[in-house]
Every structure is written in C-alpha cells, then in structure tokens.
C-alpha cells in the first residue's frame, strides 16, 4: 500500500511542480504574468471546467467516459435562459433570479440519467452512447430555442453578479462555488460508501458485483452526477458570459474537461483519480490558457494544445502505471 501511496503523492506533487515551473517560465518572459490580476484571470477561466471535471473524474474512475457533457451544459443553460426570457409571457410574472440554478441542475441530472440508463440497461459502451446523445442533446437545444440566442438583457443581473464579485475579498462567487463542489466531491468520493464503491467498480468491474456492489445503481449515479454538474456549469455559463447560444454554449467543453481530468492523474483504466489531482489539472490548463495571449500565441491554437495535453498525460499515466507494476513485482519477489 505504501508504494502505491507514494506514487499517488508523487503524481500530484508532479502536477504542482509543473504549474510552478510553467508560471515561472512564463513570468521570466512576461513579468506581468505573476501578478494578482493575472491570478484572478486564471481563476475566472477555470470554474466551469473544474465543475465539469469533478463529474467527469467520477465517470472516468468508474471506467466510462462522458462525451455529452458539453451538450448537457448547452441544453440545461438554454432551458433556464428560456425561462428567464419567456417567464412573463408564460406565467404572467417574473421568476426569481436563482430559479435557474435548480432548474439547470435538474435538467442536467435527467439528461445524465438518460445516458446512464442507456448504458446500464442495454449494456452499451459509454463512448458510443454519449457520442449519440452529444448530437441528440445539441439538436434538442436548437429545437427548443428555435435556434435563437438568449441575449444579455434576459439574464438576471443578480445571476451575472455571481461571476463578478462577492463580499469576501471581491472574489467572485463562481470561484467559491467551483471549490465548494470540489470539496463536496472529495468528501463523497473518499468518505462515503457509495463513493468508494465507484473506485472499486472502476478497478475491477468483474469483482465489484461479487463484493455486493450494485453496479447498475452506482453507474447510474455516476452519470447522474456528471449530468447534474454539467447542468450547474450550464447556469454558471449564463452567469459568466451573460448569454446562451444554441450552437456555441458548451461545444468543445468535453475535450477541455477530459484534458483536465487525465492530466490530473485519473487513469483511463479506471479506479484511479483524485479530486486534488483534478483540481491541479484544471489549474494547469487555466495557466496555459491565460499565458497564450500574453505570449502572443493566437487563441486558435488552444484546441491543439488541449489535444497534445491529453496525449502527453496518457503517456505519463502509462509510465507511472508501469513503475507501479514494477515496484509491486519487486515487493513480491
């Protein structure tokens, strides 16, 4: 056990060192990178990805993958946006500003449950199901909105205020929400029975039912959580950017999130992944995104960097795993 633990420790320490080295390297060329303002920019870039990554991490730990989160984000944001836009017409009164939060989370949960149900009932691979629902949910977003954007004036200013400031040092609420979600997921994953069962299921799907783990329920729960958090990210997208667009909102979100999760050390072979690692992975991606414009690299190169990051993280994951296997063999010998 101790050998495994040291590997994990080294892994997260490794990401932290990478963040520091990267920031120092960029700061050496552009000193303004190492300012509090820049920290604020980095922290504001990350909350949506961090919230999505918490759900995706659990999915990846359970040895699945969820490609539909970007479309869930878009659809749940659109439902709330339309509620704000049409509330006076539909109900004759204005809905309170916070109502979008439970609505979006509920929509996201339902969509995630639909993914989970297809995967568990018909025993289908998650990758194909969520590739299908990626397109299905995006299409539904266009249909319910008649392909029209929800403009800035319809998003309540209190909601937009969540991304601007808060009474605590003026740090926007959205950052607290993201870290709050991370802490809740950490507690859930490490200190509840169901949370540990996700890890057991991911490490050995064959043994899990023999140990009395209800595989169907756990899988459903994992996808529901991923959906719910994507829904939360959806309403926070409306808060952060002040609009909801049927085609742009959330598209490509899945790649950023998967990049963050795999760089954070979650293993695609299931059973391995920590909240701390994922948070660090998100922050590292945030630093890279924030550094690009300062270094004069056009924003169009971001997608390529995310792709390269996923591949590099996979290679690191493999070498770490092999070291782990080698050290286990040494202990046995």
């Amino acid at each position, binding site marked *: 056990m101790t050998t495994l633990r040291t590997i994990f420790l080294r892994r997260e320490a490794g990401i932290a060192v990478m963040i520091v080295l990267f920031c120092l390297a960029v700061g050496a060329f552009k000193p303004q990178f190492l300012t509090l303002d820049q920290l604020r920019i980095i922290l504001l870039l990350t909350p949506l990805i961090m919230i999505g990554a918490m759900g995706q991490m659990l999915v990846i730990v359970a040895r699945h993958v969820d490609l539909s989160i970007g479309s869930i984000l878009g659809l749940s944001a659109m439902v709330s946006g339309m509620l704000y836009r049409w509330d006076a017409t539909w109900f004759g009164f204005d809905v309170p500003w916070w109502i979008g939060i439970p609505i979006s989370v509920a929509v996201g949960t339902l969509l995630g449950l639909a993914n989970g149900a297809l995967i568990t009932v018909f025993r289908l691979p998650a990758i194909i199901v969520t590739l299908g629902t990626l397109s299905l949910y995006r299409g539904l977003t266009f249909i319910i909105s008649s392909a029209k954007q929800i403009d800035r004036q319809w998003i309540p200013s209190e909601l937009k205020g969540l991304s601007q400031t808060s009474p605590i040092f003026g740090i926007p609420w959205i950052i607290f929400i993201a870290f709050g979600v991370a802490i809740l997921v950490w507690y859930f994953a490490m200190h509840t029975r169901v949370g540990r069962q996700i890890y057991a299921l991911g490490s050995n799907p064959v043994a899990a039912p023999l140990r009395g783990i209800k595989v169907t329920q756990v899988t459903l729960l994992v996808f529901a959580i991923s959906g719910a958090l994507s829904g939360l990210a959806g309403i926070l997208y409306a808060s952060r950017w002040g609009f909801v667009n049927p085609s742009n909102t959330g598209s490509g979100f899945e790649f950023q999130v998967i990049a963050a999760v795999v760089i954070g050390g979650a293993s695609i072979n299931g059973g391995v992944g920590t909240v701390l690692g994922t948070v660090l992975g998100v922050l590292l991606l945030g630093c890279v995104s924030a550094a690009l414009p300062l270094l004069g690299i056009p924003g169009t190169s971001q*997608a*390529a960097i995310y792709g390269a990051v996923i591949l590099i993280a996979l290679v690191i994951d493999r070498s770490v795993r092999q070291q782990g296997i080698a050290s286990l063999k040494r202990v046995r010998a």
Partner: protein
Amino acid sequence: MSTMDTTRPAQDIAPAQPRWKTLLIRPETMTFILLVVGVFAGSLLSPFFLDINYILKSFTLYSELAIVALVLTMVIIAGEIDLSLAANMALSACIFAWAQASGVPVPAAVLIGLGSGLAMGALNAFFVIGLQLPSIIVTIGTLTLYRGLAQVLAGDKSIRVPDWFIGVDKVMLGGIPLPVVLFVVLAIVLGVVLGGTIFGRNIYQIGTNEVAARHAGIRSARIKAGLFVLAGVVAAVAGIMTASRLGSVRYDLALGGELQMVLMAMLGGTYIFGGRGTILGTFLAAWLLVIVSTGMIVANVLPAVQLVVLGSLLIVAIIATNLIYSRTQR
C-alpha cells in the same frame, strides 16, 4: 477441430438452423430491409427518390465519410476504434490546401496531404499499439489535436484550391459520379479482403479474442497498426476529395463527421466490441443514411432535428445490433 466436435456431449450441440432463418437474423438483412423501407417512404415524400441520378448526386455529399467508414468498420472489427478520422480529413485537407497555396505544385501538394494522413494514422497506431493505450481515449486526444492543428494552420479563413482542381463530384464515370465509383470499388476490394482472405479472417480473430489470436501466431500488433495507418491514408484521400468538392478548405471541414462514420458502421451491424461485422453492412448503411438524410432535407426537416435523428439512430442501431448478436450467440 472435428475430433473435438464428436467428443462433445450431444445435448451441447444446437440443432442447425434453416438457412433462411440464419439469413434473417443477420444485421445486414435488417439494414437492407430498412433501406427498402427508406426508399419506399422517400418516394412517397418526393418523386425524386425514384430517380437514380438524384440519389447518386445526394450520395456524393456523403461519399467521403462513407469511404472512411469502410475502413473504420475494419478497425472496429479488430476491436479498436478511431474517432480522429474526421479531424484527420480536415487537417490533411488543410495541409494540402496550405501547401498548394504557398506555391507547391498541386500533385506534390496532394502527396503531402496523403503523407500527412499517413503520419496521423501512424501516430494513432504508435499510441494504441506501441504504447498499449486504449484507442478510445487516444483518438479523443488526437481528434482534438488534429482539429486544433487544422485551426492553427487555416485560422478562421478558408483556403481556396485552384479552379481546375474543383469538382471531383462532377466527374462522371459511365454516368456515375467519381466519388461514388471510388466508394463502390473500395467497398468491393475491402469486402473481398475482409471476407475472403486469411488476412481478413485474422482481423476477425483479433477482434474476437486478441490474446488467443496472438497465441495462434497472428501478428495482431502489425495488423492493427496497418489498419490505423490505412484508415489515416483513406481519411486523407477523403479530405482532399472534400476539398475538391467544396472548392475551399476550412478547419471545420467534416466537423462532427466521426458521428456519421460510427453511425454508418453501427447501422451496418458492426459489433462495437469487435469481432463481428461486414463491409456489406456498412455499404448498405451508407446508402440508408443518405436516403434518411436526403429524405429529411426533402421533407424540409430542420438541421437541428436531423442532429436529433442521427443521434437517436446511433443509439437505436447499437441497441438493435447488440440484441441480434446476443440472440444468436454469446
């Protein structure tokens, strides 16, 4: 093998099914029936559907994706998946267009485009076979990388190709557009290779049980690497054909095409866990998809609804295929 069969207890041997019954529960039969139903329903919508030229013309729009889907079918049968092929099309088309725009003669630019497709396929093969990483996540990574590199290369602009190069879809061979001819020829070649050669049967064995295949002396790593590289080259061909059809190249060429490619393979009855499927199935499914998509356009269905239909079709197709296979064996 025959000695083993005779020593088995009699009750273990299932009675042989009549031939019509085994044919009926093949997924390709389902695809074929759906195709007939689709043509029939389409002809009720619009008389154009009984016009073979109209169908052929509509098919050219999907032929590039269909050509790549044929090779993807073989990759899936071998137990792997490649989601990066549509992004590969975009990047090789961008590299081709960028090369000829910066003064390289067009034939050399085509070669550069094909070479880049080959390199992309080889990169996938390196990660999946060389480093033993799961192809699902690797190709999600390379999908992002290739599409991103295309965006870096082309930016938000579109790169024009020379006028004489435009219009591969207008070239007719015996009244049939060239892309369709290419698709049919490739389908026949790959169908024969997959169904009638030892190499083809090896692909099925790898997909059914790779460890057993390796113990039986099949060079599974070499064959799978070959399939990834082949898929990369064919995707580059398809990308350059798309460039010729559209007349210009943007980074979002074939955006979302991986969905339609996987859909063609799944609709044709390819088993997602490997080891089963045929080129004939994907061939029929490509036509079915064209009929469905064209039918929706003729019926004035919104593009958004088409997204919903394609997504639902993918899920329904994979459920149906899995049910059919679980009924027959396993």
